[in-house]
């Protein structure tokens, strides 16, 4: 830990990235258009990558660079592209209907942010890493993405919510703990990719079967 000079700047930058991620999470929560959602998701990935690079540089953890590369590859390039192509092929560039109206969602979201900051506060005290402040933000963006999954009616936004949730997790992984061991990280990346692949299969199957990607069609299995 001899490079102390640029550290404060890098630290502030990291906080900034984290805040940006949170902002994007809010934006996604309030976004109605599906295409914008995908763009926002790509942006989120990009900022995540930047923040990982930043923390890698800050902490001299070489494997974090690999992580950053992986993130860039999957979250910024492959997945948005895949999603893009998917919605074009499925012709589903519609507006997103939400179950709860957006102002209410935002209000609840703010509540969630406060809650998760409060939750993370004592943890940060124990942290030995310099990246501790971001844990609260990561938790908040996880919860916000979770919220988004709950409020969306269509399959694609739900999946985007799911992916955004994983972004939040990545943020937590890289910022709070310098990343997981490499084996784990590779495994996680593989799972995400396979998951996405399966999502793709599902979209087609759902579309084929129900003529729509509206998950309201999929409320048949229940206790009557």
């Amino acid at each position, binding site marked *: 830990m001899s490079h102390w000079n640029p550290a404060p700047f890098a630290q502030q930058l990291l906080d900034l990235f984290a805040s940006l991620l949170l902002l994007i999470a809010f934006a996604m929560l309030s976004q109605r258009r599906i295409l914008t959602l995908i763009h926002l998701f790509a942006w989120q990935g990009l900022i995540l990558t930047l923040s990982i690079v930043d923390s890698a540089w800050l902490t001299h953890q070489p494997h974090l660079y690999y992580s950053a590369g992986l993130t860039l590859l999957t979250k910024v390039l492959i997945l948005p592209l895949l999603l893009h192509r998917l919605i074009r092929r499925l012709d589903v560039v519609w507006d997103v209907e939400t179950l709860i109206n957006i102002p209410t969602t935002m209000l609840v979201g703010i509540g969630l942010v406060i809650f998760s900051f409060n939750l993370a506060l004592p943890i940060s005290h124990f942290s030995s890493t310099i990246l501790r402040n971001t844990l609260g933000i990561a938790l908040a963006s996880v919860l916000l993405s979770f*919220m988004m999954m*709950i409020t969306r009616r269509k399959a694609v936004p*739900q999946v985007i919510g799911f992916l955004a949730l994983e972004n939040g997790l990545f943020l937590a992984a890289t910022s709070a703990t310098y990343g997981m061991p490499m084996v784990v990280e590779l495994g996680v990346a593989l799972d995400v990719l396979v998951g996405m692949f399966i999502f793709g299969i599902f979209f087609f199957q759902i579309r084929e079967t129900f003529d729509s990607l509206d998950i309201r069609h999929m409320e048949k299995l229940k206790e009557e």
Partner: protein
Amino acid sequence: MTLLPLDLVGLILTGWGGLGLLGLVLPARLGRSLLFPLITGLSVLMAGAGLWALQGGAQTLVLPIGLPGMPFHLRLDVLSAFFLTLLGLAGSGISAYATGYFRRMAETQAGDFQRLTLLYAFFLASMGMVLVADDAYFFMVAWEGMALSSYFLVTTDHEIPAIREAGFLYLLMAHLGAIALLLCFGLLQSGAGGDYAFATLRHHSLSSFWSSVTFFLALIGFGAKAGLLPLHSWLPEAHPAAPSPVSALMSGIMLKMALYGLLRVLFDLLGQPLWWWGALLVGLGSLTALYGVLFAAVQSDIKRLLAWSSVENMGLILSGLGLTLLFHGAGQETVAALALAAVLYHALNHAFFKGLLFLGAGSVLHATAERNMAKLGGLIRVMPWAAGLSLVGILSLAGLPPFNGFVSEWLLLQAYLLRPDLPQPWLNMVLPLGAAVLALVGALAGFAMVKFYGIIFLGQARGLVPGEVHDIGFWERFGMGWMALGCVLLGLFPSSVILQLDTVTHALVGQGLGASAARHGWLWVTPVAASRASYSPLILFAVILVSVGLTFLGVRRFFHGRWRRAPAWDCGYPFQTARMQDSADGFGQPIKQIFESFFGLSREIPSPFDPHPHYHSEVRDPLWALCYLPLVRGVARLVKVVGGLQQGRISTYLLFSFTTLLALLALVTGTRP
């Protein structure tokens, strides 16, 4: 190596199990003439082993199987020995009968017969295991094994919807009872270490509150098996549904297992009883008896009538048990011993006469394939053996001297009448009511039995009797004869029986009747003192014989013996048919009328102008609607409410997950030090 009774019992139980397994693999043709006689033989042996063990002290054995740290404990003491004797004695008659009864089944449905042999033998063996089990786990295994094997036996004819329902209800109630028992044993053990052996439970005492809770649980658990009000609903459905020898086993023997369980828990494991337990049992038992006999009197299904009568008898037995508890709690051991002897005696008697009657009903069923009494009649002329032997059964059940039913009811009445000096003055006043109920129940049982016998065996055949009705064969005769002989002997030699019961009453309440009851020789029963009460059935029987004989001889001597046959007098109405006799419904009609508010009665009475008059009346158990339906509806309502959790929308599911997470997180932050 010396053979101990317990070893013998263990061998017999294994033998039964082995025969059952053999029955599954042996061809039915071979099994039918081999297995049931062997089972019968083992039953006789079991009776011998029981009698042998009745003389001595307790023996224990630990088997190397079971749960780790909880091996199966076996113990044979006098209480078990008594019930093993009962099992063996009644079981041998029933099994002998079964040899003949299932013969036809072995020929036509070989697979069913093989399965039945297995279950029958397992049923016997599991009852034996209940009696020798000496730890809670083994007891529960045996207890539920008994329920399970009898459930499969009950559902032998599962093509009939009513039988399926009866089987379901039966197993459900049995299982609910078992759950109560599990709780009961858990409470008995609570805090005594990890061991569930009865030896541990025995030395562990509970506070009066917890022992009362335990008592309640035992009452529910065993009461559900015994058909105690209001847990009786399954009994009149399930017992008749089984093949008749199995009904006989269930009513005659299995119900006594409930009595055994209660005795075991109340007198052996639980410690000093509280007085109001006894009061509760007397009340519930008397109510059950009354309820059972009333419903028995209005049934028109042969076996259902007998099953309701079993409810009645178990009620009597349990009220006697309540008396025992009352007196035992008050320290009046002599009276307690009297009541207990009455209880045990009646249990034995009931095994015999109810077994006999179910076998008789089975013979009728086999011969006519008809369970509805309204279509039977006049069978005494075509089935003299079955009719004659059944007559002994109904006279015993009706509690008439000199048969066995009378002896135990007499003893029970004596227990009621021996002026008790209980510390609760109001109980002293209320107890005679129990005697009144007992008297009423006895008389109503007479009514039910006259109806049973009169409608089925006497009169003229109503409706069609299909094919040639044949009388019972050798094995059936043997089995029924065995049971009838039991009824007669138990009725004629009460003091010898009481002497045998002595060790049991000594073990449970610390007093015996033997010394006083047989003081005046084996001819006489004098439970307390000759000036209090005495009874000698053998003398009574002899003088009845002499008296009737003298009458007969006198009439023969002084008058001629001419007679001739003629048509029955038709009261001037020449178009009488057999259908104008009282039907079962008609015979029970007065009881229905008198206790109308008691029965959930629904009736259709034809109007005088109806061209096709149709009469229909149905008696339902009002307790069903009162106790069970609300419970079922309550659960259904709860189910409906909970059903809302699963309404198919993924967002809602996610929301559940989300709120659970948030709630737990809030909990963690909230409880953070």
